[in-house]
């Protein structure tokens, strides 16, 4: 079995069936292994249903192993931990998702808006890990970094009065018209392989 060949062909089915994630982690560098995880995740978008879930699950498992095997490289970029949390959410591993996002959040005194919003959504779905008060407090912290479409929509969602709701909805529309969006969290190591929605900046 030639892993290089499987990877060159992007034969993901063979990879999942025949190669353990740990084998990838011991055979390749951190960057290359992360690239493989990213490729799997990316191509899972074109494979619907269960194959997509197998690919994503494999990608998450690989990242978890990389986190243990290359702790130094992993910790260099907080987005690795946050991205792992986001990917855990994609495969319904919500507790793990929340744990990794919380770890990423704890790296900061003033966490970036993108991270807070992701953390709120994960923790607040469905109102399970974070209390309503915690969510409101975090959202007010995030809004200090500026009003984007996503931020304004989140604030409108939390509004308790019709007046507040109207005001945030108006701000959301303005942000949308001016293409002001919250940054997207993608690890530095995957940046070259990623195209995200236009007008959405990358988190630095």
């Amino acid at each position, binding site marked *: 079995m030639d892993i290089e060949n499987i990877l060159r062909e*992007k034969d*993901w089915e063979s990879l999942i069936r025949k190669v353990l994630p740990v084998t990838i982690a011991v055979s390749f560098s951190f960057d290359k292994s992360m690239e493989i995880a990213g490729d799997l*995740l*990316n*191509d*899972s*978008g*074109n*494979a*619907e*249903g*269960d194959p*997509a*879930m197998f690919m994503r699950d494999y990608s998450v498992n690989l990242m978890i192993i990389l986190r243990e095997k290359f702790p130094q490289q992993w910790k260099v970029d907080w987005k690795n931990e946050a991205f792992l949390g*986001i990917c855990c*959410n*994609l495969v*319904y591993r919500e507790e793990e998702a929340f744990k990794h996002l919380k770890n990423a959040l704890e790296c900061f005194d003033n966490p970036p808006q993108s991270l807070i919003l*992701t953390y709120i*959504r994960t923790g607040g*779905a*469905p*109102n*399970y890990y974070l209390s*309503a008060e915690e969510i*409101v407090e975090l959202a007010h912290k995030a809004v200090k970094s500026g009003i984007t*479409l*996503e931020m304004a*929509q*989140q604030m*409108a*969602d*939390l*509004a*308790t009065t*019709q007046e507040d*709701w109207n005001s945030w909805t108006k701000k959301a529309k303005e942000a*949308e*018209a001016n*293409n002001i*969006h919250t940054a*997207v969290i*993608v690890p530095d190591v995957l940046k070259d*392989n*990623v*195209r*995200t*929605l*236009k*007008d*959405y900046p990358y988190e630095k």
Partner: protein
Amino acid sequence: MKKLLLCLCILYLFPLVAWNAHEYLINGTACNNYLLYEEALSHLDMAIQLNPANKQSYEERAITYFELNRIDLALSDYQESRKTNPGGSTKRANRDFWDDYGYGWYDSGQQNFTILSCSLSTASADFATGLLEGISRGGQEGTIEFLSCIRGSCNALWAFACSPVEVSKELINAIYAMGEHLANTDTRSLLEEGLPELVECGRHWNEWSHHTKGKKMGYLIGKYGVSIFFYLGVGKGVSIFSDLKRANMMATLERYSLTKSTKILRESEKCAQKNGSVLKKIQNGCVIPHNANVASHVLQRKHNWHKMVKLTGDKDVDFKLVADFLKKESILNCERIHEFSFNSIRTYRYKKKIGKNTVVAVFETNNQNVPLLRNAWIEVKPPHGH
């Protein structure tokens, strides 16, 4: 006297029959344009029955069969359309078939496309060269097994970029027209579709060279298939999309008729059957789960569905009840929040307030921009109430 009566019959009845056949053809074509393929088929059957000599009816029915995934019948009608009435009145009939085509090839060693244009202008040839390059690149990014898929996400690839290629002038013109349409369409409505490449095309179309225009449009088609443009199908876009789809199908059927790739045909049919059934359900407003885990996940106790739906305890029945509930509440028509995007993976959150509770549903769009349900729950506490 008998002869006179016979002449009168021929004089009066023949145009009537021809007119009826023509009317059926027009109706069939209209149904095709509005994706009503079953209806189109019955009209076109009648058109052919009344006037079997009209090449256009066969061509139109080939499109219907193609869309209904009856590829063998599509191919047979397409071939019939080429041999019947060669001097007829349709666009291409009085020209040699190959006059409509430029000839080109792909040099895998040099990674270059070359067009040897016999009937295209320089601008069109530049556009076509870029188009081929873009389709190949888009196709490589679009699907894992892109060569085995000739319909759905990559239906243009087979006709274009497999081997030595023949580029339909009609197809090139149709793609160019779609680019022009993008340039004249409000970019925000394009962004709504969550496809940055479309927005880019719309914004920069007029600044690009013909080669870049071709490359960008080819990339879109290679990656998503021509059906991506259906979502822009408003106003003028409908007819442009319809021209593009038609030209693409003709190019694809031409490739089929030149090859005997039955394996690819079978693969394609399987793929198209799956995509077709999902699309049909979505068109009817149904909520389709993204994967097999969705039902179990959605029905967790903490998701509070028992507050809104009378659950039975049977997972399949209960999930259907939830899906029907989301359909009834037209959740996909509510405002959506972009949640996550990573290349082709895009998730959106939809919310709707019902009484004191809020219904939340997370959908992921697939590569044809079709929303598939990933998660859904009821927020029962009203601190986020409006």
